């Protein structure tokens, strides 16, 4: 690992994942890092952001001046409405999810597994947890993208062969963005599509709990 190598910032991770959204997609952003994605939609695309509280068609996060107590995203943060926005109640918001209308749900996670499982609702050793909308989103959305830091605070890998924590859903993850790169769960390994500038595949492998297989067209993460 070269001395100047720096992990990707949260904004860079969010922006890179937002670049995956295709024009016209319906997208749900989970609490935490994922909610940043609505700030980074490429200008040539219209994304319909859906949130669990029933806002269909919000846009970027509001500034302190723009914020109102009436419009928030799934992370309860103030956002702006688009002109095509509509509002439904909580039950109908999840009807939309289960009906299969979401092109992608972007979720945070504690652990992502090579087999597409993920865990994001209970911290190790704790009783209870926070499921929120994640289990509905994980089974309802056509794709699940994860956005998480590659390692825990004490340096242990979050990308694993199999999850150790209780699952949120099994076999649903299609793309994983970390501060070290962009990955696809490939069964027993993670396929590394893009890598953070300054890091080598070997650097990434050492911080990952499952085999990392670089893609033939591996490139650096750029936005």
């Amino acid at each position: 690992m070269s001395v100047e190598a720096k992990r990707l910032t949260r904004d860079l991770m969010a922006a890179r994942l937002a670049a995956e959204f295709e024009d016209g997609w319906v997208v749900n952003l989970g609490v935490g890092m994922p909610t940043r994605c609505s700030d980074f939609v490429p200008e040539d695309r219209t994304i319909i952001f859906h949130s669990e509280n029933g806002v269909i068609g919000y846009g970027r996060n509001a500034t302190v001046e723009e914020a109102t107590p009436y419009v928030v995203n799934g992370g309860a943060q103030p956002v702006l409405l688009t002109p095509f926005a509509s509002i439904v109640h909580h039950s109908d918001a999840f009807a939309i999810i289960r009906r299969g209308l979401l092109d992608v749900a972007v979720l945070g996670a504690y652990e992502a597994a090579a087999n597409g499982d993920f865990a994001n609702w209970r911290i190790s050793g704790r009783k209870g947890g926070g499921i929120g909308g994640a289990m509905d989103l994980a089974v309802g959305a056509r794709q699940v993208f994860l956005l998480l830091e590659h390692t825990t605070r004490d340096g242990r890998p979050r990308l694993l062969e199999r999850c150790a924590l209780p699952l949120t859903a099994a076999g649903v993850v299609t793309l994983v963005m970390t501060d070290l790169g962009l990955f696809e769960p490939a069964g027993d390994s993670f396929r590394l599509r893009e890598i953070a500038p300054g890091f080598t595949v070997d650097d990434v492998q050492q911080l990952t709990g499952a085999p990392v297989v670089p893609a033939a067209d591996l490139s650096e993460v750029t936005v």
Partner: protein
Amino acid sequence: MESKVVASFEEAVAGVEDGSSILVAGFGEPGSPHNLVAALYEQGATELTLIANGAGMTRDDGVITTGNLVEEKRVRRVVLAFTASTHPSRRTPLEELNEAGEIEAQITPQGTLAERIRAGGAGIPAFFTPAGVGTEVAEGKEHREFGGRTYVLEEAIVADYALIRCWKADTFGNLVFRRSQRNFNPIMAMAADCTLVEAEEVVEVGELDPDLIHTPGIFVQRVVSIPEAGGILQAPPLAMFSGRPRS
């Protein structure tokens, strides 16, 4: 027809019995019935069952939350989508009581929670849903395949009371919610035997467009005007911004 408007939050929560089950609406700040929760806190009912998105947090700015009811052991059971913090460094009173075995905490996926409440309000006792299949929350529940996919049976939720916050109410109890305020409010109003509402404004019947009313007045028992009763119109926001400096 008699008006459903009562003069104070105290009057609205009068008669809530020990052992009641209570739906509390809101998602983040919007649509949270802070004044009714504070009145319930003062009223003293205990041995409560709380059904809400979360009930973990207490605040240090004087705003009473369901977290205060939990902290003072007035709640014996919760049904929530969040029973513990998702941040390792934070701990809530609920989490501590739960670990000590002093409260019964049922966790349920948020969409399942919303649908269970909607089912309760719609006279549907149970339904199948795909959420949670293959996870801990589906353990011990009936599973069944429909069209080659596996679903889990979930039962409806009804409650004695619902605490509701709306934008406008008329004296018949017709309610309109503004933007994200809607969230759990309309479905909780349907699922309770006695629905109590704090309204940012109360108007006469006939002033609300029938096509815009989100909750018909037949679901509502008591309405309080927040400004007339001297309540908190907007609670100070908690840390709601994403952290990115914006200007």
